[in-house]
């Protein structure tokens, strides 16, 4: 540390040419940076900017009317409500699964661990038709649930089921590494001070894994809000009842209402930005925590 600072004071910024200082000795900054920015603009930024420009062709009143029409509002309620519910289920179930995978030993554990990522690897359309087949009235689950008066397929409940499937790995995979790193000495200390196992969990472990848990929750929620493939098959897609916002965008597009579609998409994009910000803040919190533990 001290040698670096001395070096710094001995070496005033002037004599060094600015280029060398900024780009270091390694080659390829211009090429790699140029390609990255070019490709990013071409594939992501310019296409995304069309949302703004297309929405701007609407007057403010027309824009507001487009994004707050009753059918659109109903789709927000379903999309965000179902995403929230599914993320909550995944919060609890994901924590349990992560706990089991980290703390317990059982045969086939590696296989189960690998299987947790299935929702990432399985194309969403496949997940969609599989879940629909399971929960339709003649499916394995449906034929068993229907007599109990529980209808899943072609109802909002089906949307939640699909979103649980899609979001499951997020909580498990964010909590798992933190739980692995958690110092057992802290639990030891809590136990030796007379805490019960439950008290130790709630007051020692839970605060440690809380940032990771919330990050996983936010990731699962963000993913669920934009999800399309797995949901459209099982939802039934009835306007006002079981129509999710992404589907509504497609419907508008098919009716050649490009500006309306762009307006709703813009709302979803802004929301995605907000969620991205929240997730970054959570990660920053977690990183700070990790640093605190290290010191």
């Amino acid at each position, binding site marked *: 540390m001290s040698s670096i600072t001395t070096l710094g004071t001995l070496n005033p910024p002037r004599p060094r040419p600015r280029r060398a200082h900024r780009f*270091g000795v*390694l*080659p*390829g*900054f211009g090429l*790699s*940076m140029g390609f*990255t920015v070019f*490709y*990013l603009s071409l*594939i*992501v*930024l310019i296409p995304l900017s069309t*949302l703004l*420009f*297309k929405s701007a062709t609407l007057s403010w009143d027309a824009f507001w009317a487009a994004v707050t029409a009753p059918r659109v509002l109903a789709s927000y309620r379903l999309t965000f409500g179902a995403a929230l519910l599914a993320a909550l289920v995944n919060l609890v179930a994901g924590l*349990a*699964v992560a*706990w089991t995978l980290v*703390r*317990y030993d059982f045969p086939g554990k590696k296989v*189960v661990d*690998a*299987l947790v*990522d299935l929702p*990432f*690897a*399985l*194309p*969403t*359309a*496949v*997940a969609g038709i599989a879940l629909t*087949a*399971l929960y339709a009235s003649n499916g394995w*689950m449906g034929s068993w649930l229907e007599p109990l008066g529980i209808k899943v397929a072609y109802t909002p409940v089906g949307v939640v089921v699909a979103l649980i*499937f899609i979001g499951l790995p997020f909580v498990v995979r*964010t909590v798992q*590494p933190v739980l692995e*790193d958690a110092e057992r000495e802290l639990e030891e200390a809590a136990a030796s001070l007379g805490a019960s*196992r439950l008290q130790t969990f709630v007051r020692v472990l839970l605060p440690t894994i809380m940032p990771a848990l919330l990050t996983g929750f936010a*990731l699962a929620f963000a993913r669920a*809000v*934009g*999800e*399309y*493939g797995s949901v459209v098959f099982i939802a039934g897609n009835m306007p006002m009842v079981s129509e999710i916002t*992404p589907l509504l965008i*497609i419907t508008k*597009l098919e009716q050649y209402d*490009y500006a309306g579609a*762009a307006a709703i*998409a813009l709302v*979803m994009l802004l929301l*995605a930005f907000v969620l*991205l910000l929240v997730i970054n803040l959570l990660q920053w919190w*977690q*990183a700070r*925590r*990790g640093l605190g533990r290290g010191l």
Partner: protein
Amino acid sequence: MSAPARPPEGGAPSLGEDVAQRQEGTPVSAPARPPEGPPRAANHLNEPAWVRALLLAASLGFLALFLLLPLAAVFVEALKKGWELYAEALVEPDALAAIRLTLLIAAISVPLNLLLGVAAAWAITKFQFRGKQVLVTLIDLPFSVSPVVAGLIYVLLFGTHGWLGPFLQANDLKIVYAVPGVVLATLFVTFPFVARELIPLMQAQGSEEEQAALTLGASGWQMFRRVTLPNIKWGLLYGVILCNARAMGEFGAVSVVSGHVRGLTNTIPLHVEILYNEYAYQASFAVASVLALLALVTLILKSVVEWRSAKLVDGQAASEFPGTVPLHLKAAG
């Protein structure tokens, strides 16, 4: 504060003590750390047996219900009417065309995003520049955008009523509702995979080795091929596996731009959808089972790469960046 107290009063004995402590310390502290694998702690650090049994049963039951059951359903439905019809659904011309198109799209988008991933990770991890964090966030952006929105933007750009629509029509070019549109939408949704995998890895590795190679007279390309590439190969492979799975399985974005022309712009997932909507369930699940197999292969390859690279770095890279969410968490469909 403590500095003046120590050195004057016998540096030698304290040094001796230090050494003795260190020699003694290693063997003593070693068994205190539980061996690798599931920690077997004393009883007071474990839940009561019934709680453990309940938790284990609940988690495994949940996974079986939400993961295993849908996976099994795909294969059962696919083979419901026997192998013959199963094979028939796969060799039917439209299905073959869909498989060909999907392979083509993966063959275009994976290498391009691989190139981008390496370039972006190189620029971001080896150099200092303003706005780096913004660039990282922008590279991440496609993960947070709904696939439907990803498709929509290309329709707005290249569609008949889009920005470039009149120009394209005048020149008899077709991007949206044709193969180029499908490729573009796939490029968008798979954009961050390789980059997000490489950035934390290369950040952890630093650039000393590359600098050494240059000092020893290597050219830029030699340095990259013989130093950088071997260092990042597992991360690269991991990113490519995930990128490929998503490229082949993408549904939402592709569905918006493809126009669903059978035999021409239908990828495998879109073919599954069409068959399903035509009530050709068995054929639909038969084609879907190909994608499910792809998913299983992806999971196996991914696990192999994870075990291999874990052996190599021993989880170093991961623990150095507690804040970075590993890429596979952000994989979306």
